[in-house]
């Protein structure tokens, strides 16, 4: 079997697996997995920026929250149908992403990271303080995406959107844009010397990544129907980071799977309370040290090596 076909097969099995899961699971786990899809898009969007372009950001959860509020308020105050609310979420988060990308063009490493933390906190605190609009930390009621939708219907909807987002990211990263992104990650001066508009693509990357986060946040809001500023918190950001790193942030699919897997673990280990986060922190450190391509990256590499060996024996 060629690697190409093995990959297509694996993706098919994966998607089929997620498609049959609701038949086997109760409402609680269906709900948990649906939340997992929110995290999957969010972790993948972070991986797109950090893993491919090499630009660190701690504002991803804040961008999701922004999308959540944009869509909710668009429906509530502008009378938009929720689908157009999601469109608004994509636009608002994408536009702010573009602005942050522009403002941080010359920043690298710790300075870039700290600046994005500042942006994230500004967004979270604004959402908390703008009580008249957002109802602050009491939380904002959000219109449902599907009127009277069942858990299973939401599950399939979010599964479909997640798969769609991943396909879109995959196509984007396979296009010349993906090469430009990676050349910027590897060496900005080198990329510029070969005609890559580093300034433009760094901003575009921030915008695209934020737009996906905004979409994820919008969907989340219309699904759980209550959002609070805590979805923009740095603790949430930490969880998204752990998901992407543990799954493998050099690949958007691995990061997405990390999102689903950790969300399931978070629920399964509920009794451990805050200790779960401590454990995730430790695992994140270990994975960073031992498996730079994440757990799924390491697993796929092992399987591929075994296939090559077996292929060689024949």
């Amino acid at each position, binding site marked *: 079997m060629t690697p190409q076909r093995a990959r297509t097969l694996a993706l098919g099995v994966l998607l089929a697996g997620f498609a049959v899961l609701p038949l086997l699971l109760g409402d609680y786990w269906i709900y948990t997995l649906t939340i997992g899809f929110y995290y999957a898009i969010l972790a993948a969007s972070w991986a797109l920026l950090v893993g491919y372009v090499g630009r660190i950001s701690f504002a991803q959860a804040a961008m999701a929250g922004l999308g959540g509020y944009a869509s909710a308020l668009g429906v509530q105050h502008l009378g938009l149908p929720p689908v157009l609310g999601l469109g608004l979420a994509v636009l608002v988060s994408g536009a702010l992403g573009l602005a942050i990308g522009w403002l941080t063009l010359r920043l690298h490493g710790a300075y870039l990271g700290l600046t994005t933390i500042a942006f994230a906190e500004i967004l979270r605190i604004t959402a908390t303080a703008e009580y008249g609009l957002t109802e602050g930390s009491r939380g904002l009621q959000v219109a449902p995406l599907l009127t009277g939708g069942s858990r299973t219907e939401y599950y399939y909807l979010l599964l479909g959107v997640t798969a769609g987002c991943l396909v879109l990211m995959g196509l984007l990263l396979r296009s010349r844009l993906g090469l430009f992104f*990676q050349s910027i990650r*590897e060496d900005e001066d080198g990329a510029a010397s070969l005609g890559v*508009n580093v300034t433009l693509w760094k901003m575009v990357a921030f915008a695209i990544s934020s737009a996906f986060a905004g979409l994820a946040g919008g969907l989340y809001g219309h699904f759980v129907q209550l959002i609070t500023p805590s979805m923009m918190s740095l603790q949430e950001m930490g969880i998204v980071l752990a998901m992407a790193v543990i799954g493998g942030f050099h690949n958007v699919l691995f990061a997405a799977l990390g999102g689903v897997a950790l969300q399931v673990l978070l629920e399964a280990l509920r009794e451990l309370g805050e200790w779960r986060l401590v454990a995730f922190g430790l695992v994140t450190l270990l994975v960073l040290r031992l498996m730079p391509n994440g757990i799924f990256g390491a697993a796929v590499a092992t399987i591929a090596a075994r296939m090559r060996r077996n292929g060689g024996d024949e």
Partner: protein
Amino acid sequence: MTTPQLEISGLIKRFGGLTALNSVDLSIGQGELVGLIGPNGSGKTTLLNIVSGYYPADGGTIRHSGTSVLGKAPHQLARQGIGRSFQITKLFKRLTVLENMLVAGLSDGTTSRAAATERAMGLLADLRLERLAHERAASLSGGQGKLLEFARVMMLEPEIILLDEPFGGVHPELKRFMHERIAAWNAAGVTIILISHDMGSIFELCARVVTLSYGDIICDGTPDETRNDPAVLDAYLGEQHG
């Protein structure tokens, strides 16, 4: 007279109190292969960085085929035909050799991947790198890395290439091969400015040699004239014999 390919006049660059380029005038015609030499810190790389858009100038003008270069970004100049390499190679280590080439080949936004790949494979074959096309650039030796940087620059189909110390750390056999390629590209019409401390290479390849010292051009002549110029000898005395 035709317009020079590259015309630098009154170029000034200061870093704080240090004057790295002190009103440099230099005119280079289409198809020339010019050696640029000078002791450490004389301003060679600085000149190259300004011509390729990496540093702003503090005074003077630079024209490429008659249009001004100053104020343009590096990627614009690269697409406009000014290619460069780096004193310390700037390869995309986690990308394959071919992907390194494709970044340059696709950066114009219009060339198709098929066309860029074909051109890349041709250039890699020229440089005996085609067998490594699908290896990561990180796995290349230092010399192969220098070759890949050459190849990447040529992907831009440049009118001028500025090579900064291309022979650093390259073993003699590979160096001979690089000489050949540089001479062949030049014969094909590419204007080349070659910075090197390797006098053997410079004197062998370049009909014209420009010498910088403390930001001034102190000599502009043939290899023979350069070798026998008292100012050049003087500039190098402190470094090589002192």
